[in-house]
């Protein structure tokens, strides 16, 4: 069935189709319509789930954790300050290896107070042990939420997943979305069967204390699970394709990178604008391409090296700032490319903070500056501010 819906509604549709059993959520702009729609689905009898109307985001994630250890498939959604408020629980959930799926409607962080999109919120949670997938369209948001449960619940992974969608740009913009039939989703996503659940007859601790002798072993296990997640994300995307006829490329989404001299790397919905600029410049005979990181954690370093080897300049467009250094994705891309024999020059650009428009002219400017620069000079390219 095709419907004209926005990204938030697409996420809510995925929650229904995934037959989520417990939702605990606190409203925050621009995520609120997700939880409103879920509440409405439950009220209409379309989704058989418990809805815990918690008093804060911290409690939202905690209640999800509590329900998940009893074997429930759970969901929450948040944004910006709400995600920041959850921060300590993010670690608790990932460290306890509980497969929570959470949608993050990306939004800038105060101060100054803002409600508009950038990636500062989720990037700041990059090291909390969650898988992070960034989507480009409402359709991808729906599909990725379904994939996220398969990835998170996979026994090789058992790691929570954040599905990140740009605030307003995706959360509130409508597009035609194919909503799959329940039977088809059921075939793709069987009920959650945890290995261990809270069972009074079987005393187990969830979230133990650990001394220095054993703590590193838990963390190594988490890192190994993240490493295995790379394959699982790709495998699940392929399986999704076989059933639904749509796929997103697993970890990275290259666009016209073949023979490109300059490639622009970015996350999220901005890729739509970038594609158009790439097409126009290609028509002019410029050898440019683009690459969208679908997964930020686990980081697809090998895939980046494979696609970007031979590129002269890699431009990275960050919608975040690691204050005191540069855009966080820029640092990551640089580090990944160091593994190449002749690594491309990498130039970082910070644009679109707090909902600032990223216009085609800005992207074109980035491309032209990188094309014009000799590779030695590219490092000098300053962050653009339109």
């Amino acid at each position, binding site marked *: 069935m095709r419907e004209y819906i926005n990204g938030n509604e697409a996420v809510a549709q995925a929650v229904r189709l995934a037959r989520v059993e417990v939702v605990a959520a606190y409203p925050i702009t621009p995520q609120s319509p997700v939880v409103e729609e879920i509440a409405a689905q439950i009220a209409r009898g379309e989704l058989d789930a418990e809805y815990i109307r918690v*008093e804060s985001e911290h409690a939202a994630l905690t209640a999800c954790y509590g329900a998940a250890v009893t*074997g429930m498939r759970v969901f929450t959604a948040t944004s910006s300050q709400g995600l920041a408020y959850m921060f300590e629980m993010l670690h608790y959930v990932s460290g306890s290896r509980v497969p929570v799926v959470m949608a993050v409607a990306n939004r800038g962080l105060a101060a100054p107070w803002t409600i508009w999109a950038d990636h500062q919120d989720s990037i700041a949670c990059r090291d909390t042990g969650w898988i992070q997938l960034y989507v480009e369209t409402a359709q991808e948001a729906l599909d990725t939420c379904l994939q996220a449960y398969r990835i998170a619940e996979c026994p090789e992974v058992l790691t929570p997943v954040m599905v990140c969608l740009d605030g307003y740009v995706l959360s509130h913009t409508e597009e035609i979305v194919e909503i799959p039939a329940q039977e088809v989703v059921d075939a793709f996503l069987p009920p959650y069967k945890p290995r261990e659940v809270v069972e009074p007859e079987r*005393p187990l601790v969830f979230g133990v204390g650990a001394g220095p002798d054993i703590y590193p072993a838990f963390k190594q296990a988490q890192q190994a699970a993240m490493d295995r997640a790379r394959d699982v994300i790709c495998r699940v995307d392929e399986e999704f394709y076989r059933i639904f006829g749509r796929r997103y490329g697993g970890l990275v989404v290259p666009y016209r990178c073949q023979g490109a001299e300059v490639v622009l790397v970015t996350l999220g919905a901005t890729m739509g604008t970038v594609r158009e600029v790439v097409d126009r410049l290609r028509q002019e005979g410029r050898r440019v391409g683009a690459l969208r990181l679908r997964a930020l954690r686990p980081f697809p370093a090998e895939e980046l090296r494979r696609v970007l080897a031979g590129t002269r300049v890699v431009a990275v467009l960050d919608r975040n700032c690691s204050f005191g250094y540069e855009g966080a994705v820029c640092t990551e891309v640089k580090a990944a490319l160091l593994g190449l024999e002749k690594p491309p020059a990498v130039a970082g650009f910070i644009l679109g903070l707090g909902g600032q428009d990223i216009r085609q002219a800005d992207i074109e400017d980035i491309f032209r500056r990188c094309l014009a620069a000799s590779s030695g000079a590219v490092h000098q390219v300053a962050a653009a501010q339109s």
Partner: protein
Amino acid sequence: MKITELPEEELVYGSFACAGCGGILAVRLALKVLGPRTVIVTTPSCLLGVTTFYPQLAFKVPCVNVTFPSTAAAVSGVATGLKRRGREDVHVLGVAGDGGTVDIGLQALSGAIERGHNFIFLCYDNEAYMNTGVQRSSSTPQGARTTTTPVGLRGKGEDRAKKDMMRIVAAHDIPYAATASIGYPQDYLRKVHKAKETKGPAYIHVLAPCPPGWGYPSHLTVHLARLAVQTGQWPLAEYEKGRLTQKKIDNPRPIEEYWSLQARFAHLLS
């Protein structure tokens, strides 16, 4: 409930708690009333520290640990999940110290009570942050010396009265709430039993003396827990059907008797 009716079975044993820990005694007695069909939810505290360090588990029931502010939020999730699984026969017991209840955990507790989940919340009150080294909490009694309310030229110990948790939970119109003291086990067990029988949230605030935190020899725990009541320092109260009742103390004993046995009040007597 009579003490002689208590089951032999221990649901918490082999913990690393200090000798004479009132907190562990409170949990041990509560579990005897609640029985093995219980799930404990607890927070970084003395209780977590002494019972669930890998690979140790001092409980014979499952235990879900969670962040410091979150006991009642995790309780909400566990209770909801169990209800959905048709396991409403299981008691969900949230346990936190005074810090995790009265201070950082208050918001989550308020939310969970207000939503009406089916659970029992046990606050074992040792009147300071014992796990981190005897810092003041908002449950520290007036006059007490702690490491953050020291006594010196300008320091006179804690200068504020204890936060009144019973009035706070009663304001939520909670189905059942009570204060108790491990020095009056029969009264305490009866209250835990009532909490067990309650549909919806129940709250028990139990005085649980702490030898190193209060500065007394460990054999005095139960004695002090009694003296606190007899000197009028710890009221035994119940909130039921919208009514708050309090046990009257006839001929209260002089407070000096209670103070003189503990280092934390020594400066008040000199």
